[in-house]
């Protein structure tokens, strides 16, 4: 019982916290893949830019909350500009080109961040400290806030896609962009805004996780690999699947690290993915023929 409360429970919560943030990242990746047919290799760099934009805003305003508002906006603008200038011309080509183009973008963003902010590790202080008694243990306030904020965001995104006209337009564009164009919707704008939105979400995830993790130019590389695994596990293009898989990976990673060193954990996560792909080749919620 002691073991349960003192060890397992906090680790489980850590996993949920991480899973929720990972969900924000993977969701953007899935939507972009569904909509544009582009597996965005630069997504991890948008996540990284979110954290650095946060540091920059905090440096000027000394407010974490303002950063939480402004950093995603800034990265959203960067994403929109990127989409218009580089991705838009290649939508008609094979997905391969999108993959390679975003790989180039990732190199530029990563090295650009290193040039601007330097290569060393940075930290963002959490906006509040302390911890709350919870189920017989105490748990850091900031992590609870992170879990709540990320979960609420995921809920808001779900409501956006199911309850608002704009969300339904995006889903319609995923289904058949050409038809939507014929119906008089400005599909180009839908693409740009969705890309900006997914970039902003990644930035938000980066900034929210920054007080727990460290900030450095390569931080996106590790996360993007996990996010890819999440997207594959959830089923390519399935938004619900991505969120479920993000929580599964978050919790699994967290619990495994109780019993293994971090490198074994990474290998175990890969192992999970391989097993799932043997049993369910299309992931949890992937449907046959979707985006193949």
């Amino acid at each position: 019982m002691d073991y349960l409360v003192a060890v397992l429970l906090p680790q489980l919560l850590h996993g949920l916290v991480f899973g929720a943030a990972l969900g924000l990242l993977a969701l953007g990746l899935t939507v972009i893949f569904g909509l544009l047919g582009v597996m965005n290799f630069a997504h991890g760099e948008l996540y990284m830019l979110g954290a650095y934009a946060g540091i920059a805003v905090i440096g000027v305003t000394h407010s974490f909350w303002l950063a939480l508002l402004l950093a995603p906006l800034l990265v959203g603008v960067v994403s929109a500009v990127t989409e218009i200038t580089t991705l838009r011309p290649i939508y008609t080509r094979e997905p391969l080109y999108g993959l390679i183009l975003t790989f180039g973008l990732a190199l530029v963003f990563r090295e650009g961040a290193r040039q601007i902010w330097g290569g060393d590790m940075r930290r963002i202080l959490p906006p509040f400290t302390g911890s709350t008694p919870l189920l017989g243990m105490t748990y850091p306030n900031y992590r609870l806030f992170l879990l709540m904020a990320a979960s609420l965001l995921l809920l808001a995104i779900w409501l956006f896609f199911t309850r608002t006209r704009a969300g339904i337009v995006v889903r319609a564009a995923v289904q058949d962009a050409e038809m939507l164009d014929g119906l008089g919707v400005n599909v180009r704008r839908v693409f740009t805004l969705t890309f900006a939105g997914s970039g902003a979400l990644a930035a938000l995830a980066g900034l929210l996780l920054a007080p727990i993790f460290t900030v450095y130019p390569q931080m996106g590389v590790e996360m993007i690999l996990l996010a890819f695994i999440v997207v594959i596990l959830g089923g390519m293009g399935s938004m619900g699947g991505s969120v479920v898989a993000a929580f599964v990976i978050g919790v699994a990673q967290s619990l495994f690290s109780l019993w293994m060193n971090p490198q074994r954990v990474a290998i175990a996560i890969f192992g999970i993915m391989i097993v799932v792909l043997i049993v369910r080749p299309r992931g949890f919620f992937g449907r046959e023929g979707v985006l193949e």
Partner: protein
Amino acid sequence: MSRLGGRAGVVAFALLAALPAAPWMSKYYLLLAFDALLFGAIAMSLDLLMGYTGLVSFGHAAFYGLGAYATAILLERGVLSLWACVPFAILVVGVYAVVVSYFATARRGIYFALLTLIFAEVVYTFFRYTQTFGGSDGIQGLPDATLWPGVAIDTPVRKYYLVLAYLVVAWVVCRTVVTSHFGRVLVAIRENEDRARFLGYNVQRYKMAACLISALLTGVAGAIYPMRSAFATPDLMLWTESGEFIISVMIGGLGTLVGPVVGGAFFTILRDKVSSVVDWYFIVIGVVLIVIVLFMPRGLLGLRRLLTPHRWRATA
């Protein structure tokens, strides 16, 4: 003979063979030439997959790195013969490649890229974080390999000829593949996988075979690398390395074989020159990649192809 490149091919190889005799050829430039040709050969074998079969592998660094470790492990233990190192590398890379290609080719398109990437990352993580093979330092300070007892591959000129010989072998293999019936089926799969399947071809088996050939060629390139550098490190397996192979193929031009050799050499020299001037050479490389995708998707050789649009399909 013409299927192997004809007169132009012979002239090109003759020029490459004469390169060490050039008066300005220093030791430094010979080793740079080694890297350029090795990278070119790897890009060429990746082109079999990317350009001809339509599969983008983001995990070729694992084949390369495993080959390098296979050689390094033998050299470290005093097995110096080239004829032991290369077959051992082929064995190691082959076993791994069968597993990866089985899973990766079961799915189409983007899945292939992601699965090869993730498998490669498993291998990288293993070599990087377990101390069995030296952890992050890898295996350092290796002795020179021998061609046969008493003849060590020790001077830059000998190393250069080793890689040139490998390039010739890889070229012959690749050209034979793409001009054969098998190669035409690969192109058919690239163009329309369903139709190839309806014609009765076992598409997955063809993809696996293409993947294996490409992986083994890359693995042999990896096996040669420690004979020049005297080390093997986990960084050889990093996924950015796979990205650089892809960049080389793109620079040269998909589905041309010659293009990626040129592209790989160009990329290696560009990286060497730019990184000696500025420390932000990744930005330069990223921008080069973006410009190529946007404005010349057929690569450097594609510029030439635009003038004669119909003659140049990658059907060999």
